[in-house]
Each structure stands twice: as structure tokens, then as C-alpha cells.
């Protein structure tokens, strides 16, 4: 959009503002964007606790890198206009009429469309690689190759428990995962809608009753990570918080066998492992 020639501002004989502004913006973008990628990118959430979390960091870095020139365009233009297009003190001039400029409008529409469509394509590709740590439903479109350790996440008001079907179906209130092993999480709920959120692992998946929500995650370092419910689910929603651990393969083997022994009495009365449960009774409820 272009303004009418400004009789009291920079006149026709003044500098070529478009060229000068464009040069400032391009130079600023060329300097700032790499700096953002190098300096800010590595500290973006959620960290590098898993392949999926590292993917989120990459995605956030790409988003930030693409947003940086856009932000600079707005900020630099604001500053530039404040300096060069300021109305002189005492000049009570009515705002000049603004006419459309098809070149500017077309350029703006094309650039923003390209940016948005490129990000949509990028996001779709990333999602299809391994689900990006989000719940992919009962039948994920893409399943990572190689061996996977299935772990069931069972949410209920107000706690998470975890079931390991390849270890006798043992259920435990603790979550431990072996490092560098692809984990196949099956997230479900016994009552209302919850959400399983393991922040440092880049995992967040809805826990819905009667739904098996599959998530793939590969922890890449030994760590303690937070587990919390991310769906308002009642009076103790804020207490659905715990810590999980990523341990070595040998430590995991020792731990899981300890769990099998410790919870043998409970395992005896558990229903057979299933992707979802239709828990009974609800005879006091409606």
C-alpha cells in the first residue's frame, strides 16, 4: 500500500525509502536469522530427551528462523516509519488517503502463502516420520521399524499406572524406560478424558476411555522426566504429577523384575492385558 505524496514529509526528491528500508531489512535478516538458529535454537523446548523431543527442538528452530525475518520486517518498518515519516511538530495535517498497491498486496499474499504452505508441508512430513511424540490413535499411519517395547499408560482419576505386557502384564505405579529403545506407548483411560504428558520426552497424548492411543518415543539419554496430566480432569487434576526415569537396559531389566515380584499379588487379579478396558463396576454411578 502506498500513501499519497506527503507534502510535509520526505518529498519526491528525498531518498528512495523502499530501497533503503529493503536493504536494512535484508541485512538485518541475514545477520539475525543465523544468530537465532545458532544461539536460541539449542535452548528451545522441550530439550533433547528423546528423538521426538529433539525433533520438536528442530521444528521450533525452523519456525523461529522463518518467523525472524517477518518479525524484523514489522519492527524495522515501525522504527523506520517513526523516524522518517514523522509529522512535523505543529503541522495539523489530515491523514492522507491510502490507496491499494497491487504489487505490494500480491507480494505480501504470495510470501505469506508460501510460508504457511511450506510450514504445513514440513509439519505433515515430520508427523508422518514417527508421530512426533503425539498420540496417533489406535492404528498409526506410520510405525517406526525395529523392535519396540510396549508400555501401557492407564489413566484414572487421579493417577497414572503403567502396564508392561511383555513382562507378564505387570502393572506398576512407576514409569521406567530403557534408554535408546523405541517405546510403543498405549495410552488409555479408565474413566474420564486425561492427557499423558511426558514433557522432557516430547510426548503428549490424550488418554480417552475405550481408546488405545499409540505414541512412539525413543529416549536418548539417562534422565528423570516429568509426567503430568494435561487435561482438566477433576479435583486432583493438579496432583496427577510424577516423575519417570530413563535408565540403562541392564538397570531396566533389574527394575522390571523387581516390579514383577513386588506386584505379583496384584498381577494375579488383573484382567488379561488389553488395549482398552471396560472397567466394572460402575454400579454406584449412573
Amino acid at each position, binding site marked *: 500500500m502506498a500513501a499519497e505524496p506527503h507534502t510535509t514529509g520526505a518529498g519526491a526528491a528525498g531518498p528512495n525509502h523502499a530501497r533503503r528500508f529493503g536493504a536494512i531489512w535484508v541485512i538485518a535478516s541475514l545477520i539475525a536469522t543465523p544468530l537465532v538458529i545458532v544461539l536460541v535454537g539449542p535452548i528451545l523446548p522441550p530439550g533433547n530427551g528423546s528423538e521426538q523431543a529433539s525433533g520438536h527442538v528442530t521444528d521450533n528452530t525452523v519456525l523461529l528462523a522463518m518467523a525472524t525475518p517477518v518479525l524484523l520486517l514489522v519492527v524495522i518498518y515501525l522504527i523506520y516509519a517513526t523516524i522518517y515519516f514523522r509529522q512535523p511538530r505543529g503541522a495539523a495535517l489530515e491523514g492522507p488517503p491510502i490507496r491499494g498497491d497491487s504489487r505490494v498486496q500480491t507480494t505480501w499474499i504470495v510470501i505469506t502463502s508460501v510460508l504457511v504452505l511450506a510450514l504445513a508441508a514440513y509439519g505433515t512430513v515430520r508427523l508422518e516420520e514417527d508421530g512426533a511424540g503425539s498420540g496417533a490413535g489406535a492404528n498409526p499411519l506410520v510405525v517406526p521399524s525395529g523392535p519396540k517395547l510396549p508400555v501401557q499408560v*492407564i489413566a*484414572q*482419576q*487421579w*493417577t497414572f*499406572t503403567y502396564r508392561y505386557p511383555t513382562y507378564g502384564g505387570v*502393572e506398576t*505405579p512407576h514409569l521406567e524406560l530403557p534408554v535408546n529403545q523405541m517405546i510403543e506407548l498405549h495410552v488409555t483411560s*479408565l*474413566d*474420564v478424558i486425561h492427557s499423558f504428558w511426558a514433557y522432557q520426552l516430547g510426548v503428549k497424548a490424550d488418554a480417552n476411555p475405550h481408546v488405545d492411543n499409540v505414541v512412539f518415543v525413543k529416549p536418548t539419554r539417562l534422565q528423570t522426566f516429568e509426567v503430568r496430566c494435561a487435561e482438566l480432569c*477433576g*479435583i*486432583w487434576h493438579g*496432583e496427577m504429577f510424577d516423575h519417570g526415569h530413563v535408565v540403562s537396559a541392564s538397570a531396566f531389566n533389574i527394575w522390571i523384575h523387581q516390579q514383577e515380584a513386588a*506386584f505379583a*499379588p*496384584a498381577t*494375579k*487379579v*488383573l*484382567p488379561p492385558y488389553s488395549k482398552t478396558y471396560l*472397567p*466394572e*463396576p*460402575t*454400579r*454406584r*454411578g*449412573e
Partner: protein
Amino acid sequence: MSLLVKKLIVVGAATIAVGVLIGLYVGSWATSMPQSVAAVRSSERAGTGGNRLTLETVAAIGPKYSPAHPDWVSYLVRSGGRWVHSTIYTVPAHSIVHVTIYQYDGDSGLRNPFLAQVQGTVGGTMTVDGKRTNAIDPEEASHTFVVSGLGVFVPLPGVPEEAKNQCEFAPCEGAAHRTIEFDIRTGSKGRYRWQCFVPCAAGWLNGNGGPMQTLGYMDGFIDVV
């Protein structure tokens, strides 16, 4: 002062007054808590430091304790020789507390059978009517006493349907009941929430509304001091 200004002042003052009253009401409602009841020190229990917490669970709290919700399922605590309607209990830090629960409600079963196993008590066991056990039949559960922060999970079996002299309203002394006893280690100071995991709120969606979501009934705090 013009009439318009006077009217504005009156309307403004009235609006502020109503706002303050609403704020006070909401604040009072949001911060109302059951009274805190301390565990009793007693020399009767050897090896527990004499700390005793005596509770009971009832199918209906009754009009005497809760005129607003007489039909809600609830816990009560013994204090000063009488039953008190509270679910906030104070116990000493780094000590063993002997807990006795008189369970007057019928069974309704656990939503997650995993919680049928006793966890986090001293020895990983409890006694039910004098018999030591480390688990119950999940279908027989009436309530649980679970303090997740202390790792304590205790399932409470229900009174059989065929039992005579079923309790109607609290207090239920003399009615058919189960007696559950166990010891817990309290650990470091802090406020730990506890809850029932059996969906025992009759008439509510999935049995999990009403008393299951209200402090003073099937939820509360253990204040370790």
C-alpha cells in the same frame, strides 16, 4: 453537584458493594476447609510411638454431620471420644502411625484391580478383621485409603450384602462393619493429599462426582508436621 453525578455515585457505590459481597461469598466458599484433626498420642500401641489415627467410612454421612448432603458417602475421624466429620488429618513427621478404619459401607469394586494390593504400609500388609493380608478381591472393595505422595495404597473390603444390621447413617457404631488396621511411616513434613479410588459416589457419572470430588468426604489431606 448535579443530579446525574449523584445518581452515578449511588450506582457506582452500589455496584462496588455488590461486587465486594460476591467476592467475599466466593472467597469464603472457595477457601472453606474441613477442620484439621490430629492423630491421637496413646501409650496403647507399642512400637508405633503411640500415634493412632482412627477413621470410619459410611455409605451416608447423615443429616447430623452434613445437612446439605446427608446421602453422601464419607469418611469420619475419631477425636476427643467422638466422631468428627473431617478428612484433614495431622500426623507427626518421621514416625509410624497406626491407622484403624471401621468400614461400614458395602462393596462396589475397584475400577482398577491393581489397587487391590496393599502398598506402602509397614510390612506391605494390613489386617482385616484381625487377619493379616496383602491384597483383597478387587470386587469386594468398598473404598481405598490412598496417600500417593507417601506411596500408601490400602484397599478396604466392604460389608457383605447379606450382613444384618447394616448402617444407614453416620455414626454407625454397633452396625455391621469390617475393621482394617495398618501402620504407615510418615516421612518428611508436608501436605499430602489422599483419596478414595473406588467410584463410590452413588448417582454421579461413573460414580466419581459429588463426594469423590469434595474435600471432607472421600478426599482430604494428611498434614505431616
